């Protein structure tokens, strides 16, 4: 893409307009609207049953929306069967054709699009190179490992140069080590091909790692849509704060709301002013603080409280401490930057501290 194009407003690849889905009497997805931009790595994130896969299947054309419309690069694809939509899917189970070789699998879409044999062969070779599977062209899917099948599924879906690539939890069948490696490859593939990726996952870490933007879905509706940092640092409700990463929730009472800032008295006994969402003066709220944002022991932190170590979980790079402070237990993570020498022991009295900027107030 040249600079001129980059200066313009990003082009909309997919527009979701008031799309909802009802299965029988079960509302899988309440009406949602949002746009996915060209060349974006966009993630639909949520727990199982939140409607993310249903949404993906509606973009692919396997399900029809109960209400609303979907646009693909400006044209309404409502009612178009899957084989007439220029989108391709990487299935959770990969769904490679077991009776076809790797080459035939990758060439299948191209053949159906009517590409000539020469053009097809060249494209298949390119794709094999892209996913580092040149040596396996003649193999059958059942002769491949999980990671290799994954690559073939990616190559097969990318080969016809779809306008949008849909990925339905593609990494969930892989083991941890491989999942990590495939994440990097997915990111590289997306940059290399410049194709818009719509990625469905329930793994928040995966979503944070890969995405340009994340749409957090819960209970069939959008909970928050934004960049990974915005979603992690400024969750818009308790669901998002809880689902993305780890956090400590403390009860709070809202005293005053002043624009972006809310003043609350917390369970820990102090009064503080922090950024908020939907806090209403005089009402109950939650205060959320991430485990890594609490200092142990308290440094020059503006807010500090006394506590007792109740438990320790050593996790190599990090140690998690459970610290009891005035009627509540805080989960605190501490980087093991020196060695194990600095560890705290159970029963030890400590002082923990944090900054008000690290706190997020969420209306109940």
């Amino acid at each position, binding site marked *: 893409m040249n600079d001129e194009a980059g200066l313009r407003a990003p082009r909309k690849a997919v527009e979701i307009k008031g799309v909802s889905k009802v299965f029988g009497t079960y509302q899988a997805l309440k009406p949602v609207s949002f746009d996915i931009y060209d060349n974006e790595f966009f993630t639909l994130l949520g727990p199982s049953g939140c409607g993310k896969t249903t949404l993906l299947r509606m973009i*692919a*054309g*396997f399900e029809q929306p109960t209400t609303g419309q979907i646009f693909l690069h400006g044209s309404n694809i409502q009612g178009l*069967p*899957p*084989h*007439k939509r220029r*989108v*391709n*899917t990487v*299935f*959770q*189970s990969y*769904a*490679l*054709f*077991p*009776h076809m*070789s790797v080459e035939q699998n990758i060439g*299948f*879409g191209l053949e*159906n*699009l009517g590409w000539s044999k020469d053009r097809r062969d060249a494209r298949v070779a390119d794709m094999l190179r892209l996913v580092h599977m040149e040596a396996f062209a*003649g193999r*059958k899917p059942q002769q491949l490992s999980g990671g290799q099948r994954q690559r073939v599924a990616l190559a*097969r*879906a990318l080969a*016809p140069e779809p306008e949008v690539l849909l990925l339905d939890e593609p990494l969930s069948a892989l083991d941890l080590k491989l999942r990590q490696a495939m994440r990097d490859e997915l990111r590289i593939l997306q940059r290399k091909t410049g194709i818009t990726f719509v990625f469905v996952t329930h793994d928040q870490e995966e979503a944070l790692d890969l995405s340009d933007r994340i749409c957090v879905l819960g209970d069939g509706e959008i909970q928050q849509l934004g960049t990974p940092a915005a979603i992690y640092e400024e969750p818009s409700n308790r669901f998002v704060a809880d689902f993305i990463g780890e956090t400590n929730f403390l009860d709070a009472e809202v005293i005053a709301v002043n624009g972006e800032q809310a003043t609350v008295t917390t369970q820990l006994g102090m009064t503080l002013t922090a950024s908020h969402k939907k806090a209403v003066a005089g009402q109950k709220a939650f205060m959320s603080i991430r485990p890594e944002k609490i200092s142990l022991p308290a440094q020059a932190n503006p807010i500090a409280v006394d506590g007792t170590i109740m438990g320790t979980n050593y996790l190599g790079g990090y140690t998690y401490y459970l610290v009891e402070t005035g009627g509540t237990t805080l989960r605190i993570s501490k980087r093991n930057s020196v060695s194990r020498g600095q560890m705290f022991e159970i029963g030890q009295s400590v002082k923990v501290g944090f900054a008000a900027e690290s706190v997020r107030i969420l209306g109940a």
Partner: protein
Amino acid sequence: MKPSARKPNWNVLGLLPAHLIMVLTLIIPIGIIIVVSFSTRGPYGGFEYVFTTAPYKQLLFNEGWTGELEFNPQYLIVVARTLVLSAVTTSICLLLSFPVAYFIALRRPTIKVLLIYLVTLPFWVSMIVRVYSWIIILGKDGVIEKTLRGVGLVDNMGSLLFGNTAMLVGLVYSYIPLMILPIFASIEKLDPALIEASHDLYGNRLITLRRVILPLTRPGMIAGAILVFVPSLGAVLEPTLLGGGKTMMMGNLIQLQFGGARNWPLGAAIAIVLMAAVMIFLVFQGLRSMRIEGLERAS
């Protein structure tokens, strides 16, 4: 690990009862039939242990009173009819069964169980009764003829009964469940994501059927074809009841030789020929599927 040569292999001994049953119920009876087929016909039925190849010659030739052999296609026609009718039966069953099996496989689980039960329902009724019912349907003044005459489509049509068509109808009717069930099983095993993947990769319904569904359900179709073709070859009831006395298949020809014709050696010889035909078919099918597997492994 290599099995030690010194230690006796007790596994073989464990299988002894099974081997015993096989020998008693399969090998010995076939041996007897082979012996009978090379024996001389007894004067009042039965047979005498005098070696002769006459029964096999009789399949192809008439022996004139001077002893010269004269070609007689009579039995060959029966063999040919049996092969053709069985092949056509298998083809018709295949064509009819696939859509039926596909339809059933896509229903809700409760409906599916009910439909499968309905497919197997005829097996609960005696085969004779079921085949006999076709006489009522196809016969003179039967359901079909009366209906066609009633609406004025035909004035006077020949009997549908007693002939190749009636036998074909009976065979297809009798054996079609044996085709539906294995095809149903293979369609049910098919991962729906594969069909979605085909549509996703720009395959329309026809392409998806031809390139994905049919190749992946072929094992079910092959199994069904064997299950229909083999019993069709040996069918007795259908040719007896629906073929009339003259259009015979091998099954009722054998029955006739052991019964009314009192020519046991000829009956045994026909039975051996029938068995050979079945075995050739099965070996051919076996080789074919081995070749397909081999190709798949090699590529």
